[in-house]
């Protein structure tokens, strides 16, 4: 029962979604779809503490067992508690909350994300060293795009911006469409496997 019940719930829920879509049930179809979407939202909202609880458990255990770098875990827990209290008292759009989010969290977040820019350049140097035809094509395409989007590009090689635009609108758009169609077919096949109970890895009991 512990193994079969989740599979049955998957099947029934998926079947319900498909019945409301494929069969003409009058106003019931629309009402049922809206209600089910609301149920999905509400159930995920009530599960919102799953991540924070996991985070607290992990870092609490680090502090308790004095694992290496446990001080950072302690700092995380203290900041988490203080920030949560401030955001509940002040509201998420309050002056102090916005200061914490905009001037601290968003700045660290953007700085770490921007830092990838430095690494992307060095990684590109290592991987693009014209090892084969594919790498050469990728490198040439990337260079044209970068030059085309920079104001100096057209001054170095005339019409680079036009070529960059063509690459974006024709080969890039078509390639991405091919990938999307392939991924959609894959998702379709995976969904059928999940509904029929052939794909059970999500249950943690193996397929």
């Amino acid at each position, binding site marked *: 029962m512990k193994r079969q019940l989740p599979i049955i719930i998957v099947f029934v829920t998926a079947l319900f*979604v498909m019945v409301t879509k494929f069969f003409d049930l009058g106003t019931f179809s629309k009402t049922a779809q809206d209600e089910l979407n609301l149920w999905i939202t509400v159930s995920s909202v009530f599960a919102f503490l799953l*991540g924070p609880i996991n985070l607290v458990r992990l870092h609490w255990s680090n502090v308790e067992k004095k694992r290496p770098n446990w001080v950072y875990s302690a700092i995380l827990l203290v900041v988490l508690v203080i920030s949560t209290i401030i955001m509940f008292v002040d509201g998420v759009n309050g002056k102090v909350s916005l200061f914490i989010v905009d001037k601290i969290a968003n700045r660290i977040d953007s700085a770490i994300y921007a830092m990838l820019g430095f690494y992307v350049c060095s990684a590109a140097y290592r991987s693009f060293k014209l090892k084969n035809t594919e790498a050469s094509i990728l490198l040439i395409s990337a260079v044209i795009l970068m030059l085309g989007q920079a104001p100096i590009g057209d001054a170095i090689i005339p019409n680079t911006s036009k070529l960059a635009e063509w690459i974006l609108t024709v080969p890039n758009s078509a390639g991405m469409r091919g990938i999307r169609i392939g991924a959609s077919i894959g998702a379709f096949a995976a969904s059928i496997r*999940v509904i029929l109970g052939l794909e059970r890895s999500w249950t943690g009991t193996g397929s």
Partner: protein
Amino acid sequence: MTLEQWGNITATICIIMAWSYLYKGENPLYTFAEHILVAIATAYGIAYTWETQLKPRVMTDMVKNGKWSLLIPAIIGILIYAWFFKGYEWIARLTMAFWIGHGAGYALAFNPPVFLKQVFDSFIRLNSFNNIVYFLVVITALMYFAFTLRKDRGILKYGSQFGRYALMVAFGSAYGSITMAYLSLIIGQLQIIFKDTLHLVK
């Protein structure tokens, strides 16, 4: 000093702490910034979900409008916490099953119209160079992704090879665009430090 100035100084310190990674990898300043970010982001997630989702559902929908049927999905959501109780982890899978069932059903019922439209739109009139290239790239990219077919000879071999090259052009352009986005983000951070805080740039 105004709150804005204090904000810029704090932002600058945060940026320097994060970028200290470039100088010395995982160092105390970077690790400190990393943990602070996780803590604040989690706190914001909790407060935001409470204020914009949970409170309206409970206070407005259930208590005020009397929509007590929402107790059922609420209980389904709460069941996920069984994950933390040894021996009762399987109960959490019921919630997962509900979400996965909805996702799988949705993928079968509602996604095909979206991607089938993309398939139909790919069969365009081949009356220009761009249209021919577009059509060829879509078809050969799909040939490349057909892993269950033998592609060691004939049209599939050359088609998938062309698809591979076309995908490299697409990935290259995506890479170029992302790199430019990163660069503008770096410039934005530098502006906070040198323009807003230190006033060295006008």
